[in-house]
């Protein structure tokens, strides 16, 4: 009996967005990363096009992140004291691109200066040819000061500047526009808030092929279902033709998973939680894979083993096979 495979017809598609610029394109990157372009829900190759594979970024910091889990500090070792060395190590660990997170304060407890932020970004750009995303510490005023300086010092590189939220989007978008960078538009787990921020950004005349959206997701066990469903709804809206949702999605399962007690703490936890390291890696990996199924285009991770596993999952999901033929 012949079986008809039911296919949805989608009028819309996700925008295609390129991060990083090579010397010919006005930057210094050895390669660029292109994401988006989907014309179907995640990995349904039988129905539409998924022209670009989701990519994995590794998060590094401008200085040793003392509040990170000891498991992460141990794994990365000495390089956590030097962003340039860390960027190289991240590249070797399989990162498609790098996310540099700037700290709120320097080693002496003073607020990070724009000069120090620029120096850290320059060091990373020199050490690795991968495209770069630079995230501020997450306090609107400090983010503005640091990111504007970084954007101006790296004009033409097509960096992704984050975090661009309702509080500070004007400053971040203006500097991204003036210096040829991209922005990561972050909103807290809500379809309408995400849409609204994208509208505000586009109302400033910012080119739509330079917006990534970050719907915030939470970790496994800490509300991931909200992020999961917000992402599915955003992607469905994009495919249905809603222009203000047609942006590739960036998610940060590394940040989310590694702040949970399950990943962060190894002692005085229930025996039913099992081995600490493996549990932590599962926490990060399963958070990431679940978000991948909901439409993530860029996944920012922290542990090299999670990177390996998530990349293997992407390889599998991007292999085009006939629905009716087993691999």
């Amino acid at each position: 009996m012949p079986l008809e495979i039911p296919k949805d017809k989608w009028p819309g598609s996700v925008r295609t967005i390129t991060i990083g610029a090579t010397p010919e394109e006005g930057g210094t990157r050895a390669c660029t990363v292109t994401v988006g372009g989907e014309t179907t829900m995640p990995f349904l190759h039988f129905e539409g096009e998924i022209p670009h594979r989701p990519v994995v970024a590794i998060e590094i910091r401008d200085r040793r992140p003392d509040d990170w889990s000891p498991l992460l500090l141990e794994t990365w070792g000495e390089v956590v004291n030097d962003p340039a060395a860390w960027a190289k190590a991240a590249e070797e660990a399989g990162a498609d691109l790098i996310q540099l997170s700037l700290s709120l304060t320097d080693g002496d407890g003073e607020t990070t200066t724009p000069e120090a932020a620029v120096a850290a970004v320059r060091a990373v750009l020199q050490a690795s040819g991968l495209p770069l995303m630079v995230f501020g510490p997450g306090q609107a005023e400090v983010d503005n000061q640091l990111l504007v300086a970084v954007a101006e010092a790296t004009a033409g590189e097509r960096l992704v500047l984050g975090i661009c939220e309702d509080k500070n989007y004007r400053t971040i978008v203006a500097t991204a526009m003036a210096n040829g960078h991209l922005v990561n538009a972050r909103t807290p787990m809500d379809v309408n808030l995400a849409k609204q921020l994208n509208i505000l950004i586009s109302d400033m005349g910012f080119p739509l092929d330079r917006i990534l959206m970050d719907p915030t997701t939470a970790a496994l066990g800490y509300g991931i279902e909200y992020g999961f469903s917000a992402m599915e709804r955003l992607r469905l809206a994009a495919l249905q033709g809603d222009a203000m949702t047609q942006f590739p999605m960036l998610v940060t399962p590394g940040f989310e998973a590694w702040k949970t007690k399950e990943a962060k703490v190894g002692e005085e936890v229930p025996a039913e939680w099992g081995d600490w390291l493996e549990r932590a890696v599962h926490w990060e990996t399963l958070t990431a894979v679940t978000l991948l199924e909901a439409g993530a285009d860029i996944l920012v991770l922290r542990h090299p083993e999670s990177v390996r596993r998530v990349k293997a999952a992407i390889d599998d999901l991007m292999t085009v096979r006939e629905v009716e033929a087993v691999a």
Partner: protein
Amino acid sequence: MALTGIQIYKLLPKTNCKDCGFPTCLAFAMKLAAKQVELSACPHISEEAKAVLAESASPPIRLVTLKADGYEVKAGNEVVLFRHEKKFYHKPGFFIRVRDDASLDQIRERVAATDAYTVNYVGMDLTLDGFAVESASGDPTTFSQAISAVRAVSQRPLILMSRDPGVMAAGLQAVNGEAPLIYAADADNWEAMADLAKQHQAPLAVFADSLEGLADLTQKIKAKGVEDMVLDHGARDLGTSLARNTVIRRLALKKTFRPLGYPIIAFPGDAGDAAWEAILAAHAVAKYAGFIVLDHTAPEMLYPLLVLRENIYTDPQKPIQVQPGLYEINDPSPEDPVLATTNFSITYFSVANEVEGAGLPAWLLVTDAEGMSVLTAWAAGKFDAERIAKDVRRFHVPDKVHRKRIVIPGHVAVISGELEEELPDWEVRVGPREAVDLPTYMKEALV
């Protein structure tokens, strides 16, 4: 899919006799379509029409229940492709596989350990659901001994695995009177397996390497009188199983395609590698499996999978909340601090567990933030200075504490000034962003 009024009308006698109490057959058909009246109100309906209407009323994905000694695992009856459209109803059952080529002692040990496995998550005790016993030996006696060994230690529902009807018959005999899931009928053995399923009134898993093959087999087996079936479409990688699971659910829900209107069984453990098994199992939870058979049993893998299952199957319309109020942790005195947080249950349990676990006394003020987490509630205006101050008064906090210190989550540091205005005689402190850092903060900053 339910029939329309016009489709139902075509099945009625079309005599407009009014015996049903409605003026015309069409009016009655419309009421039937709206489920406002029972078909039995028509005394003249044909047997054939009855059968067609009953069939159309049955759910597009059949509900299959595995029962044993008070335990119950249900799969099927799902109505949506995406959880936000309504909700996912029946959490997939996790079954641990044991093979009969292990010694009986090894089997008992493995089953006893996983049968007892319980992990607490936001106040709930999560457990696994049952065991899948596989005939690796091919020997009927060895198989039935292995099943008896499992039954001696656990009363949870079972899946019996063999393609050999003779071996399966012996296995079913070992648990006579029960109705375990029989795995599996295939193109070669389906008649004998269908007979066993009927004889034991047990559900039958059906295996084929293609969706067409599966649909052919389920129809043949249904014609033999077996109603409860479970599908194994053979794919063991992520990509193909995502595509096939999606196609199966779409055909069932959108086309009411009965031959594939059954729950799906997944075997992430066939991958062999524990890390890969966890990924395949997570994928099976998110994308439509009804039964999931696992091979690795390390708690560090079981715990995240059990949590993921809870998360994905949470009702999206009802955030899990706790009652707003003033909670006492570790028997606090009037000198101890007040910690403010929201009534989203995950937030509440994260905070309460940290403080309780650290043995630190505190008053936990759980505000009515409509079940949202701190950041989300703050963004939505449900966790601001005014609301916190209101709940301080509503729950009579000033009557309980002398030293008026209130700690707000670091994520909402921006509201500390407003809160000082709202609560003029209070000391407002900004705590850490994450619950996990609370004990250190309390020990170092709250002395």
